[in-house]
């Protein structure tokens, strides 16, 4: 029995069609006169090609509103946010053009190789006609690549401008993301929240009023790292001594997966990042929760752990708001238990993994900068119990 048509897919195809065919007035001042006319024409052709490609592959992203959905497969062809969508539409055009060139040249190559193969010993008796070249043919296969390159140049310049010169609205969420070997420090300067390895942002809507992008200021405390959550945005590096910026504007909720994308040393592989996109109300609830003070633990074991935490050197590197733990080298632990993972994504955050981490982080994440603290068994138990209350 045939199912209902893939509605989300059709909508997406239509949107892509509109994107390539909307009024030919590119934002930015890079285009004028002749360029604009050529751009219009090239975009209409590109639109047609894109339509065909989309229809053929039907690989359109599904815009579901399912909160909390895990999205571990970071497929850049299923963008759920700007600017990843904008990159996606220009990359589909590039894919279409390159696929066209590939088919044409490969066909030509196969035809020539087959047609002019040596058919038998009789072919060795006489050399084929010696042709030295042809100016006309050379001209033809010079001009065509030039035209294709010209189209690509226009599309590229336009997309670069649209993404990089986007002005952030007043209500944009601001996040300062600082890269460390091998974890992410996350600041919300307006809200005064500090957390690590997981970014919470509100869902944006396409209508003007509900539009709420997130601006990311990218810095690094040590070496170069790179922010990359493929379904939300392309990469931007986090470079020491430099402030980079990028932005995201997700249109679907869920937990998006990303990796550090610039080699940064031993545990580069385990420097994972999650972006949790929530409905605006849920996001506000999260903000309030993060701002609420952490109570001093009352249970016996946790209270012992509280003491042990401050008696050991934990406080040199870690911070817990409202206490004397003010270290800045390691992740802020104030709301540790609100996070999904431990060790920048090396394992899910559960009492067991937390216990293992406190005992010896090197077993979970070889080479990470937190040393084996050589704690007593009783201290490991109590500190874990204390950390479990930080939520």
């Amino acid at each position, binding site marked *: 029995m045939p199912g209902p048509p893939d509605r989300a897919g059709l909508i997406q195809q239509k949107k892509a069609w509109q994107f390539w065919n909307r009024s030919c007035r590119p934002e930015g001042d*890079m285009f004028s006169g002749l360029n604009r006319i050529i751009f219009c024409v090239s975009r209409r052709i590109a639109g047609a090609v894109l339509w065909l490609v989309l229809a053929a592959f039907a690989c359109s992203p599904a815009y579901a509103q399912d909160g909390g959905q895990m999205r571990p*497969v*970071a*497929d*850049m062809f299923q963008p759920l946010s700007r600017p990843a969508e904008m*990159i996606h539409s*220009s*990359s589909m055009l590039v894919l279409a053009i*390159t696929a066209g*060139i590939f088919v044409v*040249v*490969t066909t030509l*190559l196969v035809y020539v*190789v087959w047609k002019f*193969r040596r058919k038998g010993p009789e072919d*060795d008796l006489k*050399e*084929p*006609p*010696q*042709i*030295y*070249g*042809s100016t006309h043919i*050379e001209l033809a*296969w010079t001009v065509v*690549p030039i035209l294709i*390159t010209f189209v*690509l*140049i226009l599309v*590229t*310049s336009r997309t*670069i401008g649209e993404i*990089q010169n986007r002005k952030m609205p007043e209500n944009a969420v601001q996040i300062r993301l600082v890269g460390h*070997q091998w974890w992410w420090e996350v600041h919300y300067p307006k809200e005064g929240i500090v957390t690590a390895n997981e970014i919470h942002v509100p869902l944006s809507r396409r209508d003007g009023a509900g539009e709420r992008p997130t601006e990311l200021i990218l810095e690094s405390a*040590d*070496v170069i790292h*790179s922010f*990359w959550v*493929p379904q939300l*945005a*392309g*990469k931007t*590096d986090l*470079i*020491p*001594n*430099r402030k980079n910026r990028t932005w995201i504007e997700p249109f679907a909720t869920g937990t998006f*997966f990303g*990796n*550090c*994308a*610039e*080699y*940064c*040393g*031993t545990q*580069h*592989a385990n420097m994972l990042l999650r972006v949790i996109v929530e409905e605006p109300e849920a996001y506000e609830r999260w903000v309030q929760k993060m701002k609420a003070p952490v109570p001093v633990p009352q249970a016996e074991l946790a209270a012992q752990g509280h003491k042990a935490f401050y008696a050991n050197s934990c406080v040199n590197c870690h911070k817990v708001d409202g206490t004397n733990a003010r270290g800045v080298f390691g992740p802020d632990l104030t709301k540790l238990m609100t996070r999904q993972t431990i060790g920048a994504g090396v394992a899910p955050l559960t009492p067991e993994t937390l216990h293992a981490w406190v005992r010896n982080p090197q077993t979970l994440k*070889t080479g990470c900068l937190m040393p084996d603290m050589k704690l007593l068994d009783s201290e490991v138990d109590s500190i874990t119990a204390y950390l479990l209350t930080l939520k």
Partner: protein
Amino acid sequence: MNHETLDDNFQIPPPERIGAERGSLTRIVQEMVFTVDHKTLGLMYIASGLLFFVVSGLMAVMIRIQLAVPRNHFLDPDVFNRLFTMHGTAMVFLVGMPIIFGFANYLIPLMIGARDMAFPRLNAFGFWVFFFSGLLLYFSYLGAPGLYAAGSAPDVGWFAYSPLTAKAFSRGHSTDYWTLSLLLGGIGSIATSINIIVTTLCLRCKGMILGRLPLFVWMFLVVAFLVIIAMPPLSACQIMLILDRYCGAHFFDTQAGGSAVLWQHFFWIFGHPEVYILILPGFAVASEVIPVFSRKPIFGYPVMVAASVMIGFISLGVWAHHMFTVGMTSIGNTFFAISTLLVAIPTGIKIFNWIGTMYGGKLRFELPMLFCLAFLFQFLIAGLTGVMLAIAPFDWQLSDSYFVVAHFHYVLIGGLLFTIFAGLYYWYPKALGKMPDFKLGLWHFILFTVGFHITFFPQHISGFLGMPRRIYTYDAGRGWDLWNLISTIGVFFQVIGILFFVFNLIYSYVKGKKAGDDPWDAWSLEWATTSPPPSYNFETIPEVRSRRPLWDLKHPDDPDWKYE
């Protein structure tokens, strides 16, 4: 016009000289150490390049085994990081560069009708400097921890982005081995390039005007100029890095106000021309092999020369396309996207010209031709993925992902290594006097081509699915498992293919058929002398009147010079 004078100049020496004067082992070693002969040095370049190729190829096998399944415990992260750093550095500086210089050394004097390179002793100097720079790099595995330091081989990646190389983040001496080795290797490369330029410009035989230079030599001329322009920035930034690490300078030391991006500019001003330094020799081999096995002259010789020179020029202005993610302004990004896209034009022209050469010919599928045909197909893919990477917004997604890994392996294996194999099979009879075995070579070709595609094609897809490069492990469920497993399986096809190749090199030398002077019925000057050529190359220096002197000789009724 009479042909008699031309004929007189080609006195092909008697064939019985082949294989004479083969001495004992000590004699061979002594000759290798003291030689200044361009042919011996060329073979030494190629042999040591192949040696390093096997070693760093095995490193890649270990990398692939580690990545075959998620959360694999085959290698520790530090070991893995050293492996990919050494694999990348060695493949570029100790495999690609020496093998292409080996080809240049061996063939350029023969092709232009000279008795040797212009500066034979500089040539020997260049080789030994390269060879010891390679040993120095590999010695880091033994030397670095022995000298009171932590760490072993370099583990900062082959482009060693600062400040990962600063004293604070790279303690011990592993980075110094990398720095000094590249500094040393750079001196050898510049020496050899000066030699190539002077030889090509000054030692051509009578009648060999630039317009009749074989395309092979033309492309190496462009390569040599690129090396001379591109190497000094690399050497400069290596020296700056040493100053940073040992003399308290702060060029790249961000903790004291240095600039991390500065290193990237220096490195890629070298690094991008370097890509063309490595791929133009591939074009050079293809431009010799394809015409001979199509039985036609190259289509559009002047256009091929112009396209090579254009590629050389444009490649000097595209370096920052490796840096689209560092946060340049939109104008900067646009400029480098445009300049990079321009490279596609001359490159496309070249591919069309090679196809044009085959059109109307009678293609003979000998080993060199098979590798060149695979090269055309694979380089087409590499070029098109290169176009995708040139689109800066697309690059923001693709950069530093496995897609890039796939792309540059299609360029450097699919493009360069395949043409190196083509060249080795093509000139093997000239250099060693024996024919390479076709059946063994065919097995090598099939296994290696299949293995290459199984290994590297899936990496495009894992890149699309967000897999960054240089990670030593990954979690299951990210969509990468299958593609990585396939990729690892492909490696073993390649390994078996390489075994056939190595076996063929040795087997054919011992048991191969005698080649004769001109086994492929070719047209350039190196085939006019014996196989292997005598130390003085030609008994009398030939005189040429066209781009295909041996064609004129073989077809006195229909010589080329009438039409050019």
